[in-house]
């Protein structure tokens, strides 16, 4: 038996294609203390309790061991990394321009745009006998959408992609690499990205457009505007989170369907099942596998175990999503599943800000692919995965077949 901790085994790159057996092991352990003092939780009800508990912080500055804070304090943390009331204020000021009650039509208004983008991308596949679903579709779709929503010029996206990759890499915890180097690179990328977005915001201050950045910098709401550092951190967060996870959701979605031709055929026949199928994908193959930055502010008892104040606490959402105590036949993919209160978007006050957009994008994307691709097949299974065990998804997903015979009809 390996001497590695469960967390190390989950993080190991070899586990990326199928971490689910390790999650089953995790659930058997209940609330599992690791040798380094951190705690891992993978059972549904315990994760739910901790996600809703106001004594669980999202701010790693509350960790008692300074080495485990692992975040350079050069920029203020974004709202996913702070607690109420600060989190509530920052998130609310951003939400004013994204969703109800102040902007109830923002996402709906994007629907036709998203359909057009998806159709153009599928049209672009016409005549090719082999495509990479990631580079040719799942990446460009959400990137184009988030650029339009925020008002980021499309041509700047390669630069943003570079910064994003560097920042995402810093979330990993691979013992065989030099973490300091990755953290320094990520800090530099954050500063560069914040500088870029700050300059863009300044242009929108002078010349507003119909986009979210303009709305944020011209906000005349009763609570005032975000400060400049708050604005750039929030924009960095929205830009990265606004596409990164959706790429994985779309790709994991197609991978799951290509492995299950009967489910794929059923969705073609019953397109009205798509919303529930996307919910099931969020349960079955969630793009965010775990939340790595929770910390108890006081000793907290859960599942018969007391998690001490200040220790790193990992909530393994993807494991909770497969908990047989919560979901019937939990390892079965059922596109028509009911009572599906998954953790694909987390839960509680930090639940996914962009969930309505991600749902819509994925529903549109998968619909376009199902109707645009004829008899698609996976070239390799499992596909090569990206490094991150947290934001888990294929790096490439090669698909062959009469890929675009039905497209653009």
């Amino acid at each position, binding site marked *: 038996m390996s001497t590695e901790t469960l967390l190390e085994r989950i993080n190991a790159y070899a586990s990326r294609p199928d971490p689910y057996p390790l999650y089953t092991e995790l659930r058997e352990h209940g609330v599992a203390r690791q040798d380094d003092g951190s705690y891992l939780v993978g059972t549904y009800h315990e994760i739910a309790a901790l996600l*809703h508990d106001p004594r669980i912080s999202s701010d790693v500055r509350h960790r008692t061991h300074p080495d485990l804070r692992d975040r350079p304090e050069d920029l203020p943390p974004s709202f996913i990394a702070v607690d*109420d009331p600060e989190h509530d204020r920052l998130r609310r000021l951003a939400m004013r321009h994204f969703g109800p009650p102040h902007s109830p039509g923002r996402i709906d208004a994007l629907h036709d745009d998203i359909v057009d983008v998806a159709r153009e991308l599928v049209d672009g596949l016409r005549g090719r006998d082999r495509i990479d679903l990631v580079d040719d579709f799942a990446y460009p779709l959400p990137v184009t959408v988030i650029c339009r929503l925020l008002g980021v010029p499309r041509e700047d996206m390669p630069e943003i992609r570079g910064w994003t990759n560097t920042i995402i890499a810093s979330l990993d915890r691979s013992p065989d690499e030099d973490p300091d180097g990755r953290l320094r690179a990520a800090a530099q990328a954050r500063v560069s990205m914040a500088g870029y977005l700050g300059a863009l915001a300044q242009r929108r201050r002078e010349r507003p457009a119909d986009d979210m950045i303009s709305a944020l910098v011209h906000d005349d709401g009763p609570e005032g505007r975000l400060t400049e550092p708050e604005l750039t951190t929030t924009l960095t967060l929205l830009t990265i989170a606004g596409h990164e996870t959706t790429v994985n959701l779309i790709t994991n979605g197609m991978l799951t369907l290509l492995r299950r031709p009967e489910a794929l055929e059923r969705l073609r026949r019953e397109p009205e099942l798509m919303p529930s199928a996307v919910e099931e994908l969020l349960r079955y193959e969630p793009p965010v596998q775990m939340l790595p930055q929770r910390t108890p502010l006081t000793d907290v008892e859960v599942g018969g175990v007391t998690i001490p104040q200040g220790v790193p606490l990992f909530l393994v959402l993807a494991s909770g999503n497969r908990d047989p105590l919560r979901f019937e036949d939990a390892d079965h993919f059922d596109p028509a599943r009911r009572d599906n209160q998954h953790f694909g978007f987390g839960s509680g006050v930090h*639940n996914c800000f962009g969930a309505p957009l991600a749902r819509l994008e994925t529903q549109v994307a998968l619909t376009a692919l199902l109707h645009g691709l004829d008899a698609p097949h996976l070239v390799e299974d499992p596909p090569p995965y990206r490094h991150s065990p947290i934001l888990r998804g294929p790096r490439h997903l090669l698909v062959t077949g009469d890929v675009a015979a039905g497209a653009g009809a």
Partner: protein
Amino acid sequence: MSDDLKSGRIVIVGASLAGLRAAETLRDEGFTGDLTLVGDEPHPPYDRPPLSKQVLLGRVPAADVGLPARRPVDARWKLGVRASGLDPATKEVLLRNGERLPFDRLLIATGTRARPWPHPEEARLDGVLTVRTVDDAHRLAERLDAGPRRVLVIGAGFTGSEIASACRERGLAVTVAERGPAPLVGALGGTLGAFAARLQRAHGVDLRCGVTVTSLTGDAGRLTGAELSDGSRIDADVAVVALGAVRNTEWLADTGLAAGPRGVACDAGCRAFDMYGIVTDDVFVAGDVARFPHPLFEYQMLALEHWGNAVEQAEVAAHNMVNPGPRRRPHLAVPAFWSSQFGLNIKSVGVPTFSDQVTVAQGSVEEGRLVVVYGYRGRITAAVSVNRAKWLEHYRHLIETAAPFPPEPGAADRPASPKVVPSDVPDPRVLSHGPTVALTGHLPDRRLAVVRPMA
């Protein structure tokens, strides 16, 4: 046996939220027999919460609040007809138009109606309204469109407060008269009552607490104003009577069921009791009209006027109507409701009136964003949030597990020195409005239940 339950004749009296959700659940559960819904309003089922909010603001037309159908129910709808009686021996519902509807199982979901102004002549004055039905809301919205000089709201419970909020949002002058010490105090106790009073005044409401309206005055049949018990007089073109609700149980008066002003008593499985406390097996109850025992509140009979309760209880009742004994489920959901008023979202879990102490567990009254937690004899029985609804899931779990009160410290946004103070829930009899949550004692028998009419 089980197959028999999936067929036969089911009548649902009451065609609002509970009636509709019960009908849908019956079909979901495989009921293939005859299904009839009876409703005294001419409209198909509609949603009531917007009637005191979006409809009065003109954002949603009164005609657009129909409830979405979750599935086809394949039922006979008898709308615009009131049930006038029930013959338990022949198992028939009697309709006012003389028709008799035979049933094998019956669901009573007749809900409540607005408590009318007690002086019929004054109530008939043009400009005196209540808000319970879609037609009521439409009439009030029209009155508000016409730009009255002042609106008088009588009763500062949730409905009255939401109406006052809508008036202020439309820039209309509004006076709220409440016999109790503060708005919402009957449902939420002293701490949030005082908060609500400051909130209303900050939004320009002329709030008068500790007074009653002694008479509504008119001229040539039109409302001109009101006289208050403190000797003052209000000039108003519109008066909204928001004195709470009356349960629609009169039609059951001589049926032998445990039905009275506090509702129809039923067991945890939604089966109605008769007046001797014997449970029936073919008459079920759900929604605002039901009184049911709840283990979290010492098995007292609860009567709840909550949207969520209507849905959950209807689903449990419907399930139990078509499933045999061992497969029946109890209705155990923790009560929950919400309100939006004066720009705030107020949400409650548990039963705040079942309390002796409260503490502000998160946020603060000053911020206007907070969670107040209620305790009864050292355990947590309720929590109410103001613009902090996402935290309530945590407290719901604490209520379900009878966690100790006050809650353990450690919340990131906990006040520096949280104080535990008396919950100051007044006797409902000192309020203008009826309670939306009523603890109605342990006894199902209406002859033994003490019912005190509003003085």
